[in-house]
Every structure is written in structure tokens, then in C-alpha cells.
């Protein structure tokens, strides 16, 4: 069994949502993750990544505000699951409420364990 990180990407994210939207979103996210956890396959509920106070540090130590300027997509959060195959991890990803937003995507990446010795 391998570990996969599901990375949520939002298109044109502003981070501005109403409290009602936020609550509905939280419930949907919890139910999605609960379904994975009920299969014993949720490793980490992960974290959302705030859209505030974002900085990009570039080559030569150049700091820019947020990743919002030039790229359209913003990473909104991640979770870590266990899966027998990438296909199974993809099935988990398909249930994410993030995908209700047109243009949003989930990136599924297998964790390559570092082998520091």
C-alpha cells in the first residue's frame, strides 16, 4: 500500500467566501474525508492553505506577493491517503467537493519516501 497526496488546485481563487458557503464547504469536505476514513484509507486530514499572507520566494531571493499574480491556479490544501494503486487514489480524489468549481483540479501524487542515511 502506498501513500498518495491529493493536492487541491483552485482556479482564480480569491479566498473570499460567505460564512454560509464556508460552512457548507466544511460539511462537504468532512463527509468526503469521512468516506475515505471509513475505508481505513485516510492517513492525514491535511490542512487547507490560507490565501492570505502568501509569498513566493524566487531565484536570487526575489519575494513576490502571493502566487496569485501570474499563475491562474492556486493550491488550496492537501490530504494524504493510503491506496493500493494510483487508480484507487484517483477514485478518492473524484469525490472531493473542490471539483464542483469549474477549472479546479486535484493532483494525485505518490509519496516518494526519502531514504536519508
Amino acid at each position, binding site marked *: 500500500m502506498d501513500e498518495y497526496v491529493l493536492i487541491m488546485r483552485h482556479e482564480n481563487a480569491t479566498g473570499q467566501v460567505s460564512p454560509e458557503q464556508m460552512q457548507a464547504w466544511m*460539511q462537504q469536505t*468532512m*463527509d468526503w*474525508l*469521512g*468516506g475515505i*476514513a*471509513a*475505508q*481505513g484509507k*485516510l492517513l492525514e*486530514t491535511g490542512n487547507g492553505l490560507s490565501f492570505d499572507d502568501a509569498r513566493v520566494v524566487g531565484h536570487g531571493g526575489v519575494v513576490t506577493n502571493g502566487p496569485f499574480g501570474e499563475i491562474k491556479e492556486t493550491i488550496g490544501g492537501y490530504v494524504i491517503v493510503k491506496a493500493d494503486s494510483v487508480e484507487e487514489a484517483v477514485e478518492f480524489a473524484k469525490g472531493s467537493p473542490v471539483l464542483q468549481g469549474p477549472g479546479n483540479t486535484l493532483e494525485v501524487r505518490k509519496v516518494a519516501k526519502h531514504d536519508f542515511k
Partner: protein
Amino acid sequence: MNTEKLIPHLFRTESRKISSVLNKHFGINHMEIAEDIVSDTFLSALETWPYKGIPENPKAWLYAVAKNKIKNYILKTSNFENNIAHQIFQISEISTEIDLSERNITDSQLQMLFAICHPSISQESQIALALKILCGFGIDEIASAFLTNKETINKRLFRAKEKLKSEKIKIEFPSENKVEERIDTVLLTLYLLFNEGYYSENQDTVIRKDLCFESIRLLELLIENYAHKIPKIHALYALMCFHSSRFDARKDQNNQTVLYQNQDENLWDKALIEKGIFHLHLASKGETASKYHIEASIAYWMTIKQDSKEKWEQVLKLYNLLLFQQYSPIAALNRTFALSKVYGNEIAIAEAEKLKLESNPFYFSLLAELYLTIDLLKAKQNLEKALSLSNSNHEKEILHKKIAALSFQK
């Protein structure tokens, strides 16, 4: 109360107090001394009381006799084996005075609870030891509670006592920095002890109820001393109160199980529910939510019989949280049931099928429940699968009834 009833009653309530104090006094290496003195003391009562009448203060009589027996025991040992006595106790002098004050009884019981629930002792042995030493259960009763025979329990207790000795476990309060960790083990043992009583296969309601109330009693010892610092103790207490409130409603006059949805709410113990709510409030003072917090909150919602959108949304959320902390098949199944109440059976069936718990009878019972409003044939097939997997007579009986009810409907 006559002698015939009084002595067994006192045995249950007093023997555990005396033996905890004696165990504390002599140390874990000499648990058999405490056991012998306690049985000797009660033997004296059995021999004397029927002829001379019940003493005015039976408890004080027992304590006085126990104290004398200890004094005699220590003097005898030191007279005949002078140095050996000191060697075996590994202390220069053992006091012949036993402190049977209320404070020392409570402290000794608490310290004994920590000693028994030591992380190095297996869970199964912890429970058996707790029943024997802290609850004053006889071997027969423990065997009956576990639906096994006396030999098995005797062996289990013997091994557990050997382990206590070989690990040199001291009967003392855990040090400040270890308290939380040690309390976690104690709480888990009490939680399992309670479940043993609440979900047991045993048809003897008295024993099952005893197990539940004993775990509550032991938990009360912890509450008094530690709950202000460790709120999850309150949470576990609340959980036990909520569950216990339905004890009498769960069986009908013929000792047949009454399922939750068919229970008469009027039989639910309102005082226990109130007590549970009180402790759940106290539990919420901490920063973190333990699994006991989550389970107690679910149990709270189940004390409200009326279905509502809010109830099931909350229960679903709580089961999600519980699963985030730790996966368990039973939590996964219950979550799916809650999901069906919020989103409907079709969605829940699709989610249930992903659980792949094909060796678990409750998995098929759940599927049957979800198919009831959709496809009666499938409901029945799932009940039959559950029946073929079930090891519990009690559960089989319920499944047979459900299958019969379905066949009647068709």
C-alpha cells in the same frame, strides 16, 4: 438484612476495600497474603454471626477482625522466621497497624487501579484483575461475565499476578509527568470493562449491570482526584451515563432485546441523562477532543429519540471526526448509517459497498437495513449473509426475527 444476605453484600462492598489497603501495605509481591486475610475475615463472620447475631456495626467488626488477623500474621511470621520475614518483605520493618480510614481506603483503591492498569499488563488481564481485586467479583462471576470457565479465569489471573510481580510494579500514585499517560490506560480499561457489561452476550442482567456500575464507580475515584486537570475523564463518565440510561429499556419482560427504535423512552433513566449532560459540559473545558468526547457527544444525541435533520448531521459529523482519530469497522458502519439519515439510502448503499467488510455480520445487517426501502429481496439476502457470519446467539435471534418479518411482508 439477614446474615445470609448481608455477608455476600458486605463481601462485595468491603472485601475490595480491605484488600486494596492490604495490598498497598504488603506490596504487590504478597497479594496472596491480602487475599488470605480477607477470606479468613469473612470466614470468621460466616462462623460467628449466625450464632452470636449480627454485630451492631458489621463493617467496623470486619475491619477490627482483619486488623487483628494481620497483627497475628505479622507477629507469627516474625517470631518464627525473624530475619526471613524482613527479607521477604524487603523492608526493615512492616507495621502491624493497618490504616482503614476512608481516605486511605480511597487512596489505596486508586493506587491499586493504577497498578493493575499498568501498560505492561495485557488488556484482558487488566480487566480480570480489576474485577477480582477492585470490584470484589468471585471467580465464578468473572467466568460468567466473560462466558468462559473458572480454569481459564484462574490461569489468566495467575499469569497477571506473576506479571505484576516480575515487572516490580509499585502500588503508588503515578508521578506528575506520567499521570496523563497512565490515566489513558486506566480509562481504556474502564471503557472496555463497561462495554463488557453493556454489550455482553451474557443473559444475566444483574452481572451485566454490575459490570457497568462498577466501571462507573471506579471512574468516580478518578474524577474526584484528576478530572479538573484531565477533562476526558468527565467525557468518559458522560458516555457511561448516557449508555446506562437505556439499560432497563433494552430488554423486555421476557429478557428479549428491544432495539433502539422500539424502546420506550419513558423507561430511559432521566437522572442519568442529566448527569451525563452535566459531565459533558465539564468535559468541554479542555482544548482537545478525545475519542471519549466524541463518543459521549454521539451518545448525547442518541438520548434524543426524535429524528431531526440537525441530530443526524451532528452524528454524521461526529462519526467523521471519530474516524479521523482512529479507524474502526464499527465506527465506519455507524457513520454509514448516519449518512443514510442525512443523504438517503441510495447514497449510503454506494458508500457502504466501499467499506468491504465482507467478514463482518454487521456490515450485511447495515446493507439489509439500507435496502429495506429499496429492494426487499436484497434486504433479505443481506440478512441471511449476516446470519451465516454471526457468532452471537443473541444477534442470530434478532436476525431470525427480521428475516421472518420480511418473509411475512412479501
